[in-house]
């Protein structure tokens, strides 16, 4: 919801509230799901993938609906896309560089 005048939005807000409650329920369920899956002790690579996937779904729900990104202006999306690109570079490049290099683990 953009920050325009707050008059006459009652019905629209009611719809949004239904969405919030649905997202809330989904988040609770997904939390229990991810804890349940972790109990199965999958091999690390699979466990990591599944856990991060679930977390990404949960995070996306929070971002899109609680933070209203799904209806946000392009400028904000663009800034965040740029940020995500650099986030990926930051998370990936150091570990790839160190693995590719010669560092005797201590």
């Amino acid at each position: 919801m953009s920050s325009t005048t707050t008059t006459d939005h009652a019905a629209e807000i009611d719809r949004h509230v239904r969405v919030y409650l649905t997202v809330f329920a989904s988040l609770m369920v997904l939390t229990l799901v991810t804890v349940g899956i972790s109990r199965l002790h999958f091999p690390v690579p699979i466990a990591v993938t599944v856990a991060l996937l679930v977390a990404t779904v949960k995070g996306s729900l929070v971002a899109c609906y609680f933070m209203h990104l799904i209806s946000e202006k392009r400028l904000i999306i663009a800034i965040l896309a740029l940020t995500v690109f650099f986030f990926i570079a930051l998370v990936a490049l150091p570990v790839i560089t160190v693995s590719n290099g010669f560092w005797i683990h201590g």
Partner: protein
Amino acid sequence: MSEQAVVTHAPHAAHEAHHEELGFWRKYVFSLDHKVIGIQYGVTGLLFLFFGFSLMMLMRWQLAYPGAALPLIGRIVGEARMPGGTIVPEFYNELGAMHGTIMVFLGVVPLAVGGFGNFVLPLQIGAPDMAFPRLNMASYWFFFLGGMTMLASFTAPGGAAQSGWTSYAPLSVIAGSGQTWWLIGMIFLITSSLLGAINFITTTIQLRAKGLTFMRFPFFVWAQFVTSFLLLLAFPPLEAAGVMQLMDRVAGTSFFLPSGLVVSGQVIQRAGGGNPLLWQHLFWFLAHPEVYVLILPAMGIVAEVIANNTRKPLWGYRTMVYSVIFLGFMSFIVWAHHMFMTGMGTAMATFFQTTTMIISIPSVAILTSLIISLWGGSIRFNTPMLFALAFLPMFGIGGLTGLPLGLNVADIPLHDTYYVIAHFHYVVAPGTIFALFAGIYYWFPKATGRKMNEMLGAIHFAGSFVCMNVIFMPMFLVGLAGVSRRLFDGGATYSFSQPVLHLNVVSSWGAWTLALFQIPFIFNFFWSIWKGEKTDANPWQATTMEWAAPSPPPHGNFLEVPEAHRGPYEYSVSGAARDFVMQSEA
């Protein structure tokens, strides 16, 4: 300074402002006005620049005359650091680490971004102030706190930080308490920059005048805009790294400490399992974009001064804009060219070498555009222009000498030698700092209503230009001979240094003479505030919007809300009454 409004009530209709006469503290110390804050940043930045320069002048004594006693200053500094007036290695390292830290984080960036950005940006986009004035004030005071913390660190037992401005682990983790102060100081400074970046970006997007589209921005605005993104997104990893180094130092963690680390012949009793390379990655993730933070505002200033003093539009404006955006973007993925010698594999070395070579393209595009902009111009050789012109070849030398450093194999003999020092000083010293001088002489009339003296300016310029080259050109030779940086005796103990050692003396005398040539500038700066030739709103006959405001601008900047009717560099337009048409002229 004129009256200021106290914004506590709900906003009234657009043109109705509630003015109250503010006391001294609210007007000059805790001001919300971007112009006052800009001047605060500028003056504080200049003071730190001179202090950082003084630290280097002391180092240069040791480098020119290793082991020799320095009479007066030795006694002031004290027996612990200068017993009998000779500099001990630990003090040399303290001077080196703090010189770098102060110049970069307390001098250049606050002046270039905090000073010029704050003062000029809102005026150039026709805005009444920054989007978040209180945040702006907070930014300055965080910077001030950070600066005071850094200064106070000299009083720590064992001295200030002395592990290089790069604070590499594990040395920085086991170093004395001064390093902890450094980390705390950096956290304040990073906070200041983050808040400032948020302000600049929001202001540029939202508060630009009607008709001022992005492609009508003065290049200076683009430069500051991209710089702000670099600060916003690159600084946080260093903040995280700083917290982790603090944890290592204070909470006994081993983020950066490998297992089995031996210090003074003993294995240290720590959990280990950490990785010093992690510090390097996080540090350089910031520090590479940081060097573009150092150069971009300078390019912005030079662009303004050149357009104004050639009486022609900038050549290749669009190219310059796309280049500066591309440059900002690429700056985030080149950082490990600072780490070629850390045992990097060939695949990743190739990756970083390639991105580094690519990033030189927009740099060259910008420099070339600025040079071509001179062609066919009616060049006016005033003091701002002298500095702006000198910037071009100096940045050219700095940039070109960076190329072998960015190539993984060529970097092998050059890494960590004086060649590197010469390279980056050419870019920052006769590069950025010259651009900052140009900016001071150029915008001084806008801030004060008076011009600085041209004769003193010319002396300042000529002396500085010669001295900068005397200091740094020989360093390329010293580095090529193999002399490492950060050697407390300048390489005196190595046989391969002997043929080039005399060049250390040359550089030192260059540095001390450079200091002398700053005297006309310092005198000029203060004298002109009271006695300089009075000017009107537009003494340089410039086109950009800041020159439509009075000199100095009142609170709220413009007497009437400005509107942009054309591009930023309408000089020598055929058929126009004068050789320039202002951007905001109806």
